[in-house]
């Protein structure tokens, strides 16, 4: 069981959600994110869910809560990497992810957060 990986780049935190999300890891995810948010003054939290092969209503709620935590620290949470079949299922199930912003990929997520990655050569 891997722990939650959180990386900081500029004004942004990147959170990778592991393939299997157990209750203990949900707490871990939310504690890690809030812990890091209180230390690092960031504007955005990008949550990568590409490892998740399914998102059920429980996981959807966890993701929504995590975005709400980010908001309470003045940061915006953006979800990236929702698989096509997962997106279809979320619609079928009537699970509402509107509490969380979503973006097609990391690049778009950064655009949403008005952040830019520049290369210095």
């Amino acid at each position: 069981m891997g722990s939650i990986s959180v990386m900081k780049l500029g004004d942004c935190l990147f959170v990778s959600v592991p393939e299997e999300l157990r209750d203990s890891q949900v707490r871990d995810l939310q504690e890690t994110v809030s812990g890091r948010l209180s230390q690092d003054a960031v504007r955005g939290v990008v949550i990568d869910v590409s490892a998740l092969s399914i998102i059920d209503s429980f996981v959807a709620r966890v993701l929504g809560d995590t975005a709400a935590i980010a908001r309470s620290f003045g940061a915006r949470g953006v979800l990236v990497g929702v698989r096509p079949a997962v997106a279809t299922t979320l619609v079928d199930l009537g699970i509402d992810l509107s509490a969380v912003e979503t973006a097609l990929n990391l690049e778009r997520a950064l655009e949403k957060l008005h952040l830019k990655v520049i290369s210095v050569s």
Partner: protein
Amino acid sequence: MLVTEAVGSALESMIPHSALKSVVSTLELPPHAEVGTLDVATTRRVLEQLSVGLKLYTGRAAGPQVDVLRKVVTGSQRPVPTRLELPVLGEGDVLVSVKACQRLCSGFFSATDCVRLATVVSELSRNIYMYAREGLVTLQLAEDERGVVLTISAFDRGPGLDVEAVMAKGYQSKTGLGRGLKGCRDILDSFEVTSQPGKTLITGTKRVRR
């Protein structure tokens, strides 16, 4: 007659004799499997392995031969249902049942349907874990005259649920799970909930689209 013997003699007219042994040896079969005793999932897998073998040694995609081989493997009978009983005793079992569903469905349903069905199983087994602590999830793949049907059922001895309230429009439990149950009904072809304190049974079916 053993499946290997039956398949071997049927293959003699289809592929070179020298290739026969290697094709038969690739088949993943239970030991001493008799013709007509294989379950739905195993029959499917064996026929896939045979088509690969045929293609390899004849250079052409296997067409009508597969139907012939199906009759040989099943003895022209309907395969026995594949049945998986997955106890939900702890949180880890939710993931186990989801994985089992994905594995069982992958050969039969489209990739998107597999995700849908795995999500249904996740909702149901998590419901058990969260509200009843323990219960049993059963997955069954059975063949009838119209094709293959998956039946998902979840049983527990927990406090029970108010079926009408849960299925009502706009219902939302504090864990966010109530929505899920209604969503399960939308994904499946049939869905039935019977509940009283100490005895809750949820059963749903989904037919493989052809």
